[in-house]
């Protein structure tokens, strides 16, 4: 009986030793993998280059729309002029990459949320309406010869929509501001708005189940109709809305 018990203990020790041995080997393998692991993915650097060109092209479209909406008289060729320069300058900015950017400006009518937008050289504005907007639309094709990339297409659509929700009530007027994807702009202040014939005292935002965010513009004096509200978003793009529409 004693012999049997003794032998059994020995078996457990052997099992434990085996398990410890397996663990030691596993740790060794794991540590070796951790120390020698290296994964080189050369395509990632090109993705960042493509991303940078795409981002700057989008910013150029926004900048051109800001310029277009703030100038008087409006220069409809500003976007094309800027894109032509950007196309040339790409070679100087990314030397050795052999990057070539082609573009197609929207020149037709598009329907967005029931509003028909007639683009001219990629730019459009519908102002002095209860729902007004400023928009730009360009389709780019990027070729980077150094990596054999051809025909990478991306479309940049920029749109800022300003809607006066109802007739002004005393010194207060409610508006909504949305982007191309229908999402509201969230961080506008009184510096972003201007009401004709009235000084803007404060701008506050509240949640609304239909529009998500409604801006309440409070003026120094009571507002009478027709009322014109001007908006400059954070990129400097201007939109002018009027109630009632003219």
């Amino acid at each position, binding site marked *: 009986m004693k012999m049997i018990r003794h032998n059994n203990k020995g078996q*457990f020790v052997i099992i*434990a030793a085996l398990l410890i041995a397996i663990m030691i080997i596993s740790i060794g393998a*794991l540590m070796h993998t951790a120390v*020698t692991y*290296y994964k080189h993915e050369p395509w990632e*650097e090109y993705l960042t*280059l493509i991303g*940078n060109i795409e981002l700057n092209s989008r910013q150029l479209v926004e900048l051109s729309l*800001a310029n277009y909406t703030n100038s008087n008289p409006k220069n409809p060729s500003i976007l094309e002029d800027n894109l032509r320069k950007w196309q040339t300058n790409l070679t100087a900015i990314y030397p050795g990459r052999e990057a070539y950017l082609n573009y197609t400006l929207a020149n037709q009518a598009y329907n967005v949320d029931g509003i028909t937008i007639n683009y001219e050289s990629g730019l459009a504005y519908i102002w002095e309406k209860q729902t007004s907007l400023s928009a730009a639309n360009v389709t780019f094709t990027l070729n980077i010869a150094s990596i054999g990339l051809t025909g990478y297409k991306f479309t940049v659509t920029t749109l800022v929509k300003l809607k006066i929700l109802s007739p002004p009530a005393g010194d207060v007027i409610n508006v909504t501001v949305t982007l191309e994807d229908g999402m509201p702009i969230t961080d506008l202040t009184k510096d972003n708005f201007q009401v004709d014939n009235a000084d803007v005292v404060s701008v506050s935002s509240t949640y609304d189940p239909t529009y998500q965010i409604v801006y309440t513009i409070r003026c120094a004096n009571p507002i009478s109709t027709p009322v014109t509200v001007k908006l400059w978003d954070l990129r*400097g793009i201007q939109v002018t809305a009027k109630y009632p529409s003219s």
Partner: protein
Amino acid sequence: MERINITKNTRGQMRIVEVILASFVIIFALSFTNIFAITPTSQKYEVTELQKLGYNTLHDLDEQGLLARFVYNHEWENLTSALRVLLPLDVYFNVTIYDLQGTKVNNVPIFYGDREAFATSKNVASISYGLVGYPTRLSATYTPQILIIQLVRG
């Protein structure tokens, strides 16, 4: 006799359970420490890795609208601080900003690290990054500028 045998067997089973549990504890501990394992850098790919890091950092800043603001408003200290926060501590940088005519725009150095490292290291990455302008309510003109960022591991 039978009772003794049962007790003995149960003891053995419990030990196996203990060993298995102990193994799980150790494996869990090892897996946990593995999360913090730092993968080594490769000498062969060091430059491309630094280039990728630089592109990603500048792209992140640009996407948030900060890079254009810092550059066009000449907020050089903010740019230096942002790069120091976004890049790893052991990566030194030297940024120079030019306009398209090749004139240097930043009048103060945008720099972090040891200058000696740039002179002695065999793996210095250089990246160029373009900016189109910084539109505001008062001005929205196409004024491209080129950032040249040099990176080296200290």
